[in-house]
């Protein structure tokens, strides 16, 4: 069978729509992952034992099981307990909760890298712990972890393709649907790959820019 990309031209809008959904899931999952990741990181470094233990257990469980299984538990498993999640909710929640574990580890490594004298200097001015965290520690942590964070964003964007398996019509599933109609797997998947590549490249460019910016900065 000869390769024929022309049949895809008509369906490009479907794929672009898929891209939008992919971005939507990824961004929502990242936002969720950031918020929960920050909380988990703070728990992890806190001296309150139960919080620390919870955070460690969470990270352990998430890192030790496949994302696909986690997602299926949310989408196919929870209804059995009477919790019905829409596919979009399950997708964002699953990918977000998964990403949170990795982001929290990135944040924790950043916090650990900050000299303890920074917190002490802030506290010796009378600053409260939360304020010192926000005003003194967080900006320094951000500078350290920005490259790893962008990297995690790329991973999350690619992982969002798994959401196709809980019937979300993001880019991957949009591609699959075209294949059911045309049987043009090679052409469709290569175009899908290209679209992922473009989206990830944008993030890579952003990452290079951020790194450069940090390099020339004063810290």
């Amino acid at each position, binding site marked *: 069978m000869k390769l024929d990309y022309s049949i895809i031209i008509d369906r490009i809008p479907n794929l672009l729509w898929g891209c939008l959904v992919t971005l939507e899931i990824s961004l929502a999952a990242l936002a969720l992952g950031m918020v929960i990741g920050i909380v988990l990181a703070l728990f992890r470094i806190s001296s309150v034992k139960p919080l620390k233990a919870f955070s460690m257990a969470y990270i352990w469980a998430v890192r030790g099981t496949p994302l696909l299984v986690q997602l299926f538990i949310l989408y196919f498993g929870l209804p059995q307990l009477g919790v019905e999640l829409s596919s979009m909710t399950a997708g964002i929640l699953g990918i977000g909760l998964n990403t949170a574990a990795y982001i929290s580890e990135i944040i924790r490594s950043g916090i650990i890298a900050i000299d303890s*004298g920074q917190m*002490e*200097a*802030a506290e010796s*001015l009378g600053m409260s712990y939360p304020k010192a965290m926000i005003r003194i520690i967080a900006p*320094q942590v951000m500078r350290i972890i920005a490259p790893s964070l962008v990297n995690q964003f790329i991973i999350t964007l690619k992982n969002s393709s798994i959401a196709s398996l809980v019937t979300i019509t993001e880019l991957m599933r949009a591609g699959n649907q075209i294949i059911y109609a045309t049987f043009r797997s090679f052409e469709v998947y290569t175009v899908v790959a290209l679209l992922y590549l473009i989206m990830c490249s944008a993030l890579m460019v952003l990452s290079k820019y951020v790194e450069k910016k940090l390099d020339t900065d*004063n810290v």
Partner: protein
Amino acid sequence: MSEKILTLVNLHKSFGDLEVLKGVSFSLEKGEKIVILGPSGSGKSTVLRCINRLEKINHGQVFFKDEEITSQTKLTRLRMNIGMVFQRFNLFPHKTVLENVIEGPVHVKGMPKKEAIPFAESLLKQVGLSDKRDVYPKQLSGGQQQRVAIARSLAMKPDILLFDEPTSALDPELVGEVLDVMKELADEGMTMIVVTHEMQFARDVADRVIFMDEGVIVEEGTPDVIFTSPKHERTRSFLKRIIH
């Protein structure tokens, strides 16, 4: 008799099994300058850090003026009133010199920026760094960084300043500029506790010298007494080592 501004009563501090402070007591009058001497590991830093509770105290009491510092709100007030200058400066690297100095007044005390900036500028002038106000710490020499750190502490208008070996991370040629600033503060009547190995500074500035070893105060007295006729063998041998 002038008023006691700080009183430590029987401080005990352990790190795990290691007992670092074994009952340290002394008090400080307003305007008094104390220099703490002692060999490495004797607990000098720990004493300072217990005063503003960067370390938890296992046992013992800290009184600021006449009030025992126990609760968190009192602790915040205590920290606002007691400045600390660290061996390694600990300036905030993501903030300019000026931002470092106004951080405390603006974000802890709630002073309006309009007021804090001229005040910070006057402090920078005092430590001889007016021209560096918009520079980041890493562009400064160690001596300059330490002077900014002193200005940052002064910006809280503290009643007491604690110095933990403020010159020992500095190249020898930069020590003088920091000691000069400290001497000026002393002359202006600042109450100070200084951990240092700078004997000349101790002689010139201290009202009282405390010699610590192994978590206890071995002896204390005027610089004259401690340096010329120390009572204890441990003090004598320490001074011999330090001076030669």
